[in-house]
């Protein structure tokens, strides 16, 4: 199993150091995660980064592990960002905490070899799309493009972790997959485009697969996203795409 590729691009008009998504993968163990730091919060990139790095070290893909998994990360975030004197507004903002949408995926060889089991956990509007035998098998956690745009639930760096446990907020989903399947994990702007295309009876994964298999994939990805933004087909937002080839 391998994570075939990670692509990312900051919002148009901002620099790479203002990019606030994060992505991590441990293909050997089958752990993958993306997070989308909320730009209205402060130190969101650090928070997004902590979430994905910890997930690929020790994934919390079951609801009951969530609280004990999240609490030490919240402390780490505070230790990282709260240890120096800050102006009044930065201090107030720090008290509000950072927020991020989060999506983690675990793929494991099950008893039914060569089929495998996958399990995903999500808070917010970063999405996973599972493609098998040329068909879209799962879209998770959102299933329609109309669901984007409302305020998504996010993981807060200072919110009580227990508050995330509702089934509506912390979503968990699993299924089977087989060699040759692909998982596309993406943050909201790209995910919204993907679902809109799918709703129009198109196959949005083909656009991705084209540059994935072509030369200089990173540049092709950046050009493709810029083009979608210019045409008004995609909101100008940080974009992250993680493609997992089973």
């Amino acid at each position, binding site marked *: 199993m391998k994570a075939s590729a990670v692509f990312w691009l900051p919002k148009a008009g901002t620099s790479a150091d203002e990019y606030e998504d994060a992505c991590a993968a441990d293909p050997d163990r089958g752990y993958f995660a993306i997070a989308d730091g909320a730009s209205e919060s402060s130190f969101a990139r650090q928070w997004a980064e902590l979430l994905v790095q910890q997930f690929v070290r020790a994934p919390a893909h079951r609801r009951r592990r969530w609280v004990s998994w999240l609490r030490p990360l919240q402390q780490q975030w505070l230790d990282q960002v709260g240890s120096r004197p800050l102006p009044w*507004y*930065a201090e*107030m903002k720090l008290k*509000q905490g950072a927020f991020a949408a989060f999506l983690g995926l675990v793929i494991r060889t099950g008893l039914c070899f060569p089929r495998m089991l996958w399990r995903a956990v999500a808070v917010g509007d970063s999405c996973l799309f599972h493609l098998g035998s040329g068909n879209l098998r799962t879209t998770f956690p959102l299933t329609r493009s109309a669901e984007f745009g409302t305020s998504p639930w996010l993981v807060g760096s200072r919110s009580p972790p227990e508050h995330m446990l509702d089934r509506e907020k912390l979503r968990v989903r699993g299924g089977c997959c087989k060699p040759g399947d692909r998982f596309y994990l993406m943050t909201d702007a790209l995910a919204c485009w993907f679902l809109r295309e799918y709703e129009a009876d198109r196959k949005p994964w083909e656009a991705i697969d084209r540059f994935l298999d072509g030369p200089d994939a990173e540049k092709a990805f950046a050009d493709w996203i810029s083009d979608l933004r210019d045409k008004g087909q995609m909101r100008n937002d940080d974009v992250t795409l993680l493609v997992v080839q089973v």
Partner: protein
Amino acid sequence: MPYSAEISRRNPTCFLFLIDQSGSMDDPFGAESGKKKCDGVADAINRLIQTLILRCAKGEGIRDYFHIGVIGYGDQVGPAFGGPLAGRTLVPIGEVANNPLRVEDRTRTVEDGAGGLVEETIKFPVWFEPRADGHTPMVAALTLAERILADFISQFRASFPPIVLNLTDGEPTDGDPEPAAVAIRDLATNDGNVLLFNLHISSQRAALIQFPDSDAGLPDESARRLFRMSSILPASFLAVAREKKFNVTEASRGFVFNADLISVIQFLDVGTRVDRNLR
């Protein structure tokens, strides 16, 4: 589609507050409230500026998504920031954040997490002082606002249109404000016309009317005129108003009549909600 421009550092928008500082603002809000109108409005504006700053705070700095101005009208008409910003009309929000007139310590009561209440000291930056003296030269204030905004628009033609929030407790004493209001609303960026929202503050207990879609229920010509002066709420503002459980329609205007202190705060909140356009 208008009112969809991104608000970014390259492409900021502005909020301009016009604050009635006439003598009657020294009276209390409504019959049962002990708080003077001028004090309540100053607190609400200072608190709102703080909220806007927090929306722009990133890490250790501030992103200049907004330019902010406060114009007072009473015995004088002009910029109303105090301290280092005195005399300035529109100021980038980073500069506002770093130059309050003073930072007060205020206390508030919060839950202690164990079933009790505890007093907590919070920082309360102040940029704008209450004032109540003289008449109500609203026409002069609107005319000054038009000049300030025309200048802003000439610098930022692609910006999300500036938003003007006018808070008053009485009738203008320097003529008919309607032509000046029209002149403001006729200003436009490539993304749409300038938005003018009006709020009328009451000294009596009277029926509160928030974001009406017609002038049918308004008691007099002065109220109907403020209604006509107010912009129709664009879709994104309507969405915010609906989220806050206001009964609004496509024709609802940025207008509140007979406001008490809570509805002043709600008006300022709905009228400045452009978060979804921030980049």
